């Protein structure tokens, strides 16, 4: 009887772990923003860049980067655990080619409780807004999002997985991540 109880307890523990694991995975997955609604902007944009590096591709890359090459080794470390890099960037010839609705379609996703704005840069003169959001899952970082809104440019960078600003700055110019020139992060701000 004791053995049966112990076995049941073991199974229950495993099930609970699986459920907890699934919940964490689900949360981690939600760090991936829905960006496809922006695609039609390509019709109006003078330049469009769309980067999609999913988990499988990231893992493949990490696997085949040479550990003996210092540059490769650094990148390997950098992308360790990263589950995806997604970038959409639209450059327009004139102002007003995209609307508030497009920006709102991204902002609405970033208003969920898991996302926290860690950097917000506003330039009234240039009309530029750059916001950086971090998603935390428990005490771990689940993902990062950068939303850059300029009169003639709209850029969204979404990195899924453990990433911080230091890593992000090192990824700039690689894996399709644009150079963002972000200022250093301030202590945690309210959203």
């Amino acid at each position: 009887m004791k053995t049966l109880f112990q076995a049941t307890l073991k199974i229950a523990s495993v099930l609970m772990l699986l459920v907890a694991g699934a919940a964490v995975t689900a949360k981690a997955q939600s760090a991936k923003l829905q960006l496809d609604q922006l695609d039609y902007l390509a019709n109006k944009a003078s330049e469009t860049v769309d980067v999609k590096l999913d988990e499988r591709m990231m893992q493949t890359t990490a696997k085949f980067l040479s550990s003996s090459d210092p540059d490769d080794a650094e990148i390997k470390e950098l992308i360790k655990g990263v589950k995806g890099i997604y970038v959409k960037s639209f450059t327009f010839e004139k102002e007003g080619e995209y609307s508030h609705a497009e920006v709102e379609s991204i902002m609405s996703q970033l208003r969920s409780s898991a996302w926290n704005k860690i950097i917000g840069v506003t330039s009234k003169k240039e009309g530029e807004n750059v916001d950086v959001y971090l998603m935390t899952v428990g005490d771990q970082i689940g993902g990062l999002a950068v939303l850059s809104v300029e009169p003639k440019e709209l850029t969204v960078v979404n990195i899924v997985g453990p990433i911080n600003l230091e890593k992000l700055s090192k990824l700039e110019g690689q894996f399709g991540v644009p150079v963002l020139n972000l200022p250093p992060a301030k202590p945690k701000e309210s959203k």
Partner: protein
Amino acid sequence: MKERFAIIALTFAALLGAPLWRGHASDDFSAVVKVIEQFYHVKHQNLPLLARAGIKVTKTAARIRGGEARRLAEAGSARVAFFEDQEFNSRGRIAGFKAQINGTLVGWSPLIQTLAARDEEQTYIYVRDAGEKFHVLVITIERHEATVVQATVAPGVLAALMKDPNEMGRALTSDATINDN
């Protein structure tokens, strides 16, 4: 009886499945070429003979690695379709073309897509598992010409492609379409 039935079933499955499988592997390239032809009302030229004769099959990795000659693709595995001296004009529907290409290449991972609607310039890079290696499909379109290249690359080259997808995609197309014999 059961054994006989199993053999018949297996034979039937093999007959039915083999061409389908082979078709799937090769058809994506043709399907993409067809999408370009139908969308832009253009006609392609194949380069099978040139490819078999050893059309420049890439030394891009050598450039990246600093000189060591290394081939991106196995000789004969590159497929190229050319569109030359034709008009590519999406008439404000470039996003629709992108969606059609994405819809055609189901099962491929789109790495990077760059579009410039005014100049009709587009680059699409897709990757798919091919056992120990990878298939890479690169589509480049300009106002008056386009190229579709499918090549098999080693994993190390894929890693280089991932690090700088745009540059490597350009290099792949260039290497697969310039004869260095």
